[in-house]
């Protein structure tokens, strides 16, 4: 799996929440986001690090920004799973937080 695909699915999560706020009904973008798993994201980020630095994959570690990105995805997954019962304000906050984390990831990975 590529880093672009992870970024694509996270973006679909953001788009899906935005549309949910407009339409108050679920959509396929949200389903794309729900296919993400923590292990998959970690594997892609670690692979990206080891290729960049030519160090062993086993010794590579996630940066604080990357850990925070994964945590934010985890929190968003929980929100989207019960999105019908969430206040609009909480969804908007979630979009802002995950969007900010995405900006950090774009800045941290030169190939993006």
């Amino acid at each position: 799996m590529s880093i672009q695909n992870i970024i694509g699915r996270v973006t679909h999560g953001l788009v899906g929440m935005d549309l949910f706020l407009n339409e108050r009904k679920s959509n396929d973008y949200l389903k794309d986001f729900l296919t993400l798993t923590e292990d998959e994201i970690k594997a892609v980020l670690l692979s990206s690090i080891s290729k960049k630095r030519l160090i062993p994959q086993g010794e590579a570690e996630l940066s604080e920004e990357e850990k925070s990105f994964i945590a934010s995805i985890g929190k968003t997954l929980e929100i989207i799973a019960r999105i019908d019962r969430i206040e609009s304000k909480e969804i908007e906050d979630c979009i802002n937080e995950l969007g900010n984390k995405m900006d950090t990831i774009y800045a941290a990975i030169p190939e993006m």
Partner: protein
Amino acid sequence: MSFDVVLSALGSVENHIKGVSLDEPYGVKREALERARELFLKWLDIYKTYTNGYRQELLPRTQRHTIRMLSSFTNDLDNQVRAVFEARVASEAYLLVNNLFKSFSRTPGPSFILVEHREFKQTSIATLLTDKLANLTVPRPVIGSANIGVTITDIKNKDIVVICYDEGQFDNVFSWPLLLHEAFHYVYENERLDRFAKDCPKVSWLEEALIDMYIINYFGPAYALSLATYLQRFPHEKTISHPSFTSRIFIALQYLKRMQEAKKLPLPVSNHIVDVFDYLKRVWDQHKETDSLEVQEQVAKIYDSAERSVQEMISEKAMPFAEFLSQNETKRQEAFKKGGFEFIENQVLSVDDVTDYFRAGIPAAADPRIIFNSFISRQSQEMINDPKAHIFVKESLKKWHLKKAWTEAKDQVYKLI
């Protein structure tokens, strides 16, 4: 903020793809690049469709994220295009890889391109694209989104093998045998060679270990030398997908040891193989403590379980290296007896001949396996940084290719007459 900036960037990439020069001397490369260009244009159309789809959605809070994502995808595509069309590896590397495909694949061999990357690896254009788009729904407003499915199917049907080389090795012809390892992944999958691995330990890196065995049996000690020289740069690298560096050297050592014991090889290769063994042994001794005994035992088991099947498969398709050398020598002697050795198409060259040609500064139209294994002696190992040796190998491959083309054309004419 508007999606027009993305469409403009995609337009630039499109112009770049359409404007690349395909003025290549070898048909195998020219045709592959033409097909790659066609596939990249289809890939680009898919991104345009996604972009036009997103622009029709009402996204007051997230439009900038969508534009950022599409920009990243566009840049990535542009990088892929540059890596293909601006790859610096000499065109003669295509001749070497094509020769392997012609030997091992059902005719015709696959179309392939050599691509500059951070590492050696094998993939395909369809795989690269579908990897980007996995679990990414086509934007809702796209009318007839099934068309994207049709385009992806079309790309899969016309797919092309992508063999990536380490960008730092672009001018190192002695790393080219490693391209054969990557090319063989395609053969392994298409010929379903995993059927021969039933009795091997079930480790995640089994395919890599077996492919090392196949290539060393086919290409001989020159592959072992390339592998050891390259892997020394990353001695402690361990991943779940590859056996560790020392394990791969251990496989090569096993092969060389058995070659020595079997005494099947003609001179001077039988002498040179000792030099390669010594080189690999020195490298292995320096690093073997980084490997667990368990891994070494697994590698030994794989070697013992698969050795016979590997040799049988190579015999069926292309002749193992030892037999190839013996047969080459027999043909050479026959050609001498028949006379006419001054005509290039009648020549059969040995390792000694190639060494003589190199000293004389004349490219040798020898089989690639002979050319590369002419540089394995201790003396030649010191020469691998000499630009003259690199030019010699490239020019020799070119001459071998022309000789083959000329001989085939002549045979066709004789048949018509």
